[in-house]
């Protein structure tokens, strides 16, 4: 349909010049375009941060390797972590939210379109600033001024005394600026979901994606801001002679840790909750059943949001808190595993009794389920504080959180890409390339992150640019690095799929997956105005009701 429109239009109107197209994208306030800008921005940084990871893994392939100097290595792991969290994961999830939320709740755009654009460009500025640090001089060792303090930037390593030059400032200001962008988007998401649902879409009839993005946005409001506050304090220390984290003046290094992790722990839930949303949309469609236990899924998510604000010091079990504090954080951390585990059971319940189709989105969803289960269980191990006194700060933790972020979040994102790409572009991604991507990436992922747990159990700490031979770490590190290279190849295949399918993919039509939420009711890609007339809904699966008028959901809800 839309190609007919274009054909007719171009008969009447001149094709826009490339500069007009560029101008259109740069000045856009349309949520779909902003969503795509976020996603493309994030994919670019995914590749960059992935290269940083490869540098790390090549250096660690052999003990006493000298692929890069210790100074460069320390910059690599700092930039890899900072980029992945703030300039890949956050933007890509905001991008999906931007694109999908208005479509799924029957709205024409987000609540504040200009704020939306402003928030994106703030994040873009942050990313640019962080990477400008590689060019900036004045770094301590002349290797550019890229930050080398780890992505948590612990005090007092970030004090002027220990980080002269501007590297810490690049970290602080880039992340601070993009943090403001995140807050803007969160405000937008909350206002959109609360105030712009179409008639009939009560809160209990929203797609789970809307609920989860509402929760995530609420968490951003109260979790990202503590980091912003701490960063302002750090800037005051570094530029105005303040003493917030100045241990020489009686300041506290642990105060930074508390503030950082009050942000840092909810942050990882902020990242995973939208991925839960993708799973909650994809698994039902490919199991041909509604999500099992919608009300409990909502309740569990809100529960996670609250409990996750009380677990932060499990990142600090080794700093010498007293036994009561350690016990408190141990039990809250174990407790947050309960609603999280319940979600896995509900997805299992959704698949149970279904007719599972193993299309590429579902392959990645199944990978997610297994890997997130394992990641959750290694998390339970570390919730047991004494066990964590051994596991913390070692490669066991690195394995755990990469299991969550790569095995969980990235797999869920891949599923989301394969699921919604047809809607965004009007073309299907290649199933053949998708299947190849899945299996290759699965192999690489497990080769890297399964053995990595054992390196930690054998005493290998994290953030070391080299290690002594003969400690049982040598073979493990080699296998880990080989897995990384395989993952890189799989990513190349994925990117190739994205590009090639844009021109050569099969036409998708409105609803290639036979799905049930509002975004599948319109053309692919959607028209600029989304809905010709705002729909009215009577159940959680409006398109199911239309396709099955003899047995609509509205009869049972």
């Amino acid at each position, binding site marked *: 349909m839309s190609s007919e429109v274009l054909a007719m239009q171009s008969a009447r109107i001149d094709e826009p010049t490339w500069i007009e197209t560029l101008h259109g994208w740069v000045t856009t306030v349309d949520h779909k375009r902003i969503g795509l800008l976020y996603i493309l921005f994030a994919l670019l940084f995914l590749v960059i941060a992935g290269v940083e990871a490869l540098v790390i893994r090549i250096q660690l392939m052999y003990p006493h390797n000298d692929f890069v100097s210790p*100074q460069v290595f*320390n910059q690599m792991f700092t930039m890899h972590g900072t980029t992945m969290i703030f300039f890949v994961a956050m933007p890509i999830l905001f991008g999906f939210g931007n694109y999908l939320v208005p479509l799924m709740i029957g709205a024409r755009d987000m609540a504040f379109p200009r704020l939306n654009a402003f928030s994106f460009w703030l994040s873009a500025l942050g990313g640019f600033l962080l990477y400008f640090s590689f060019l900036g001089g004045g770094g301590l*060792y002349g290797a550019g001024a890229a930050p080398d303090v780890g992505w948590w930037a612990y005090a007092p*390593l970030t004090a002027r005394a*220990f980080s002269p030059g501007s590297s810490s400032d690049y970290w602080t200001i880039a992340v601070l600026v993009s943090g403001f962008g995140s807050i803007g988007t969160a405000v937008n998401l909350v206002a959109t979901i609360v105030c712009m649902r179409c008639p009939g879409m009560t809160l209990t009839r929203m797609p789970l994606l809307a609920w989860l993005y509402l929760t995530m946005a609420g968490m951003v409001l109260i979790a990202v801001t503590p980091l912003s506050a701490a960063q302002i304090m750090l800037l005051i220390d570094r530029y105005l002679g303040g003493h917030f984290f100045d*241990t020489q003046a*009686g*300041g506290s*290094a*642990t105060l930074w840790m508390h503030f950082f992790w009050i942000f840092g722990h909810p942050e990882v839930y902020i990242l995973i909750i939208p991925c839960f949303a993708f799973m909650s949309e994809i698994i039902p469609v490919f199991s*041909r*059943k*509604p999500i*099992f*236990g*919608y009300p*409990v899924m909502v309740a569990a998510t809100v529960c996670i949001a609250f409990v996750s604000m009380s677990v932060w010091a499990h990142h600090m079990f*080794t*700093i*010498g808190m007293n*036994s009561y504090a*350690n*016990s408190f954080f*141990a*039990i809250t951390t*174990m407790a947050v595993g*309960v609603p999280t*585990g*319940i979600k*896995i*059971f509900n997805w*299992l319940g959704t*698949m149970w*009794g*279904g*007719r*599972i189709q*193993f299309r590429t989105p579902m392959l990645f969803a199944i990978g997610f389920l297994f890997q997130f*289960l394992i990641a959750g*269980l290694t998390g*339970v*191990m570390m*919730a*047991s*504080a*004494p*066990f964590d*006194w*051994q*596991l913390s*700060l070692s490669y066991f933790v690195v394995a755990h959180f990469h299991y969550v972020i790569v095995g969980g979040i990235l797999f869920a994102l891949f599923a989301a890409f394969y699921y919604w790409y047809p809607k965004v572009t009007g073309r299907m991604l290649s199933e053949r390339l998708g299947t190849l991507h899945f299996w290759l990436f699965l192999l690489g992922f497990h080769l890297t992150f399964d053995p990595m747990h054992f390196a930690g*159990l*054998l*005493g290998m*700490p994290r*953030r*070391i*640019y*080299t290690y002594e031979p003969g400690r049982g770490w040598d073979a493990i590190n080699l296998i880990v690095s080989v897995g990384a290279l395989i993952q890189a190849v799989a990513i190349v295949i994925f990117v190739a799929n994205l590009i090639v399918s844009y021109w050569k993919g099969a036409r998708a039509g409105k609803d290639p997956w036979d799905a049930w939420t509002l975004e599948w009711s319109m053309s692919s890609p959607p028209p600029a105005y989304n809905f010709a007339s705002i729909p009215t809904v009577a159940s959680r699966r409006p398109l199911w009701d239309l396709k099955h008028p003899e047995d609509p959901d509205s009869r*049972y809800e």
Partner: protein
Amino acid sequence: MSIFAPASTPAQSIFDLSMFVLSVTAVIFIVVATLLVYAIVKFRATPENAGREPAQVYGSTQIELAWTITPVLIVLVLFAATARVIHAIQDAPQPPTAVEVTVIGHQFWWEYRYPALGVVTANELHIPVSEPSRPRPTFLQLLSADTDHSFWIPELAGKTDLIPNRINRLWMDPHRRGIFLGQCAQYCGTQHAKMLQRVSVDTPEDFDAWVRAQQQAAARDESAVAGRRVFETTACINCHTVRGTAANGRFGPDLTHLMSRATIASGAAENTPENLRLWLKDPDGIKPGSLMPAMKLSEVELDALVRYMQSLR
């Protein structure tokens, strides 16, 4: 360096707890993974059943209640086991027979002071074995002179951080003799990777002998006088201490009994004359980014200085 080869009570308690936690999580994994695999196989779309939608089930209160209550119970059990071990390790009282060591973390080396024994050394810790019949644990006070570090000898105890402006405690009572390795576990700067640790658990007799030797002032070797003069007239004395001489700097390791150590530069190199010479000539060659400056000495001065270092038994 495995955490599953405990050689001391705190490490053993952690090991026992970890076995319990691993068993519980293994069971959870097997149950859930089996159900997942079963679901994927049993409920896959086949040519026969494709095209028909399955029964649209929205939920089940009983099932959901069951899989809420069971995890809560598991959490309570795990927490009870955890809390017990937390208190057992952290709130253990210090017996009067304990050896007290003050550990001060530096970028990128370890300072060890035994206040009651008048011993100051660096990078290689000596502690006595602790027998159940005659317990003699070592209680460490952890401080930092600059940024955050973390003390981690996996076979002897869980790790505890060294944080400036804060005093932390750690204890261990090794059950067997031997050399136990570890390294700094909290990123502290450029040479975090080479802030290695070496703990020598000695028999009571060997430990006492070591203490006595460490308590002596520096040996005076007349053949090393030239090197000693180089040491005392270059800036060495500003950073290093050699007890019984004018050198009493505290920025760098105490060198009084340098030759009693197996390694130099906090484990970055073996303590051989060649490595000593290389370290003195060009520290960045062994540990790039360490805070020991290259003193730009001549070859003759270097030779003399190495001879002097070697005399500090």
